[in-house]
């Protein structure tokens, strides 16, 4: 204007400004998605992470909650073990239409278990734990054990499975989005990689949140994506619908093609002697180049049309798959086979499922899974607290409704973050305190878990935030710290027995409970020293 010549400096700053204006809205938008997805699904995802992390120790928790069981028995020969199982089933359920034998093969299945389904329709299956050395039944208390906790991770509780699957799928998607948007929002991703500034209020919470997230980012991305793959048939049903249509039998056709039934036969009613199981297991071992069988499923046992399904070990490697062979139960002839690896897409899916479950993980890798899961819990918890700390600092400028929302989240945070561990401790206490011969004992243990959690939420909702945090922290200290003492009073498999005997599952659980109690005690002392959570 006025004949002035535009210089380079006049052009470049405006281009930079345009670039800056484009970048800022993206980061702001991603921050909004990150915040709202985290806020709306934080409690549920925290529950999934806690129960999922405990799932990596499901067998160990199972054992602690069934102190009647001896140390693990998966090093015994599978042929003799299987024979003990079949002898038991033959004497206790000869007329059943289906027998199932879980052979102890590894840490995931350390005990010999049998199940049978009565020939009469409408009957539930029954099960028994057997001593793998002698075949004698081990009477164990009715409990959900670690499996119940793990199943809550993907089934929740008190909800129909179809609804629970959708809720879990939405939460998993929210988690995945939160992780990706968090990476975009995190301005100083590398500069803050090793940064943890203590005693700085909001900055400390942000550093802790970033550190827990970034240190385990590969794990978090894997776990959230593979969790969605678990639910892909429910979460993305239209892909199957597009190929198989929407007619009444279309869904069945899809699943029959994906998991085709193998050598199905109906019972004839003619009794015939069964082929020796040792022969079948030997054939399977030769077929699988030395790999052992893990599961025997016998349909129509003792019938002319008996079928023996032999399945390999799903946890043999990272790809969660196993071969399956079907033998004629009378002649021992091989009738059908399903290969462990059938196609590349299926193997990719099985790899993701295997990585998610970590069944193949040896002790060191399993410890890494546990640590990553715990850091995931820390990531979510610090995120939830950070939201309240940030907004409490802006409270003077907030509207009344925003303050109400802030107060609600502040109060619920302690009930969720500390309340859930307290509830899980209560679940373990119930396992030791409820009468062993109580009906539906396993269900009552779970009711105790949720009852205590509701109680902590109610306490947190009606108490001042700071006080609730401190009180619940000390409840957690008591809940976990006193567990080994309770174990000593109620069973003979306490630390005084398990340590000298080298029973590291029982000893490890008790020592882990003490460690958790100490961790909560440190948190309680830190909160008392600071006088508040921020």
């Amino acid at each position, binding site marked *: 204007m006025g004949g002035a010549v535009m210089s380079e400096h006049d052009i470049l700053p405006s281009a930079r400004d345009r670039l800056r204006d484009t970048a800022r809205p993206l980061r702001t938008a991603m921050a909004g998605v990150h915040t709202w997805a985290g806020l709306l699904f934080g409690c549920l995802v925290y529950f999934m992470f806690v129960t999922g992390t405990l799932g990596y120790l499901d067998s160990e928790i199972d054992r602690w909650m069934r102190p009647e069981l001896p140390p693990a028995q998966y090093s015994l020969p599978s042929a003799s073990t299987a024979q003990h199982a079949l002898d038991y089933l033959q004497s206790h359920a000869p007329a059943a239409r289906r027998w199932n034998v879980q052979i102890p093969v590894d840490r995931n299945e350390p005990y010999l278990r049998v199940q049978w389904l009565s020939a009469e329709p409408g009957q539930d299956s029954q099960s028994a734990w057997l001593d793998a050395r002698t075949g004698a039944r081990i009477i164990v208390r009715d409990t959900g054990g670690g499996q119940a906790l793990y199943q809550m991770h993907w089934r929740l509780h008190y909800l129909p499975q179809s609804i629970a699957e959708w809720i879990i799928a939405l939460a998993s998607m929210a988690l995945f989005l939160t992780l990706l948007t968090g990476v975009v929002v995190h301005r100083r991703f590398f500069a803050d990689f*090793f940064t943890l500034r203590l005693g700085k209020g909001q900055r400390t919470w942000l550093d802790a949140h970033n550190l827990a997230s970034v*240190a*385990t980012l590969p794990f978090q991305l894997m776990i959230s994506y593979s969790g969605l793959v678990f639910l892909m048939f429910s979460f993305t049903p239209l892909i199957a619908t597009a190929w198989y249509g929407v007619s009444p039998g279309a869904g069945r056709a899809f699943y029959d093609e994906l998991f085709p039934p193998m050598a199905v036969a109906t019972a004839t009613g003619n009794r015939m002697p069964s082929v020796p199981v040792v022969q079948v297991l030997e054939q399977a071992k030769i077929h699988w180049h030395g790999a052992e069988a893990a599961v025997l499923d016998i349909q129509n046992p003792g019938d002319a049309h008996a079928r023996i399904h032999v399945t390999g070990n799903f946890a043999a490697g990272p790809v969660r798959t196993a071969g399956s062979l079907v033998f004629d139960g009378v002649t021992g002839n091989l009738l059908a086979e399903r290969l462990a690896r059938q196609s590349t897409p299926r193997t990719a899916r099985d790899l993701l499922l295997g990585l998610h479950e970590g069944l193949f993980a040896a002790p060191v890798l399993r410890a890494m899974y546990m640590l990553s899961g715990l850091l995931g819990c820390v990531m979510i918890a610090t995120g939830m607290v950070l939201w309240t700390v940030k907004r409490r600092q802006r409270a003077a400028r907030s509207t009344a409704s925003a303050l109400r929302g802030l107060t609600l989240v502040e109060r619920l945070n302690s009930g969720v973050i500390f309340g859930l561990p307290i509830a899980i401790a209560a679940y373990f206490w119930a396992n030791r305190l409820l009468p062993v011969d109580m009906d539906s004992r396993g269900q009552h243990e779970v009711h105790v878990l949720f009852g205590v959690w509701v109680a902590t939420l109610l306490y947190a909702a009606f108490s001042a935030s700071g006080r609730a945090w401190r009180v619940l922290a000390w409840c957690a200290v008591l809940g976990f710290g006193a567990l080994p003492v309770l174990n000593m009073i109620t069973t003979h498999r306490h630390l005084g027995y398990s340590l000298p005997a080298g029973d590291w599952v029982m000893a490890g659980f008790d020592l882990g409970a003490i460690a958790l109690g100490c961790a909560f005690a440190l948190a309680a002392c830190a909160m008392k020293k600071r006088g508040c959570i921020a």
Partner: protein
Amino acid sequence: MMLLTFAIIVIGLATLALAMERHGEHLPATLSGRHAAWVLRVLGCSALVCALVLLLLVTDGIPAALIWLGFLAPGTLCIAFGMTIANLIHSRR
């Protein structure tokens, strides 16, 4: 071998941390500067690669990679806490 691998990872991460401007103040003056930072980064990355190679010597590909990734998390935490403690000591002097 696992302990050795973890130790190498921690050393590698510590070297990478010290290459950063924020944490490099703990280094002696002779080791500061852009050239020194690049050397530290190369050394740090080399240590991490060395740890992965060690793991591959004792276990298969996928579990080795998973263990390596898994070790990065506690290693990062160790270094972060170490730097925090170093900063606290430095600020109190």
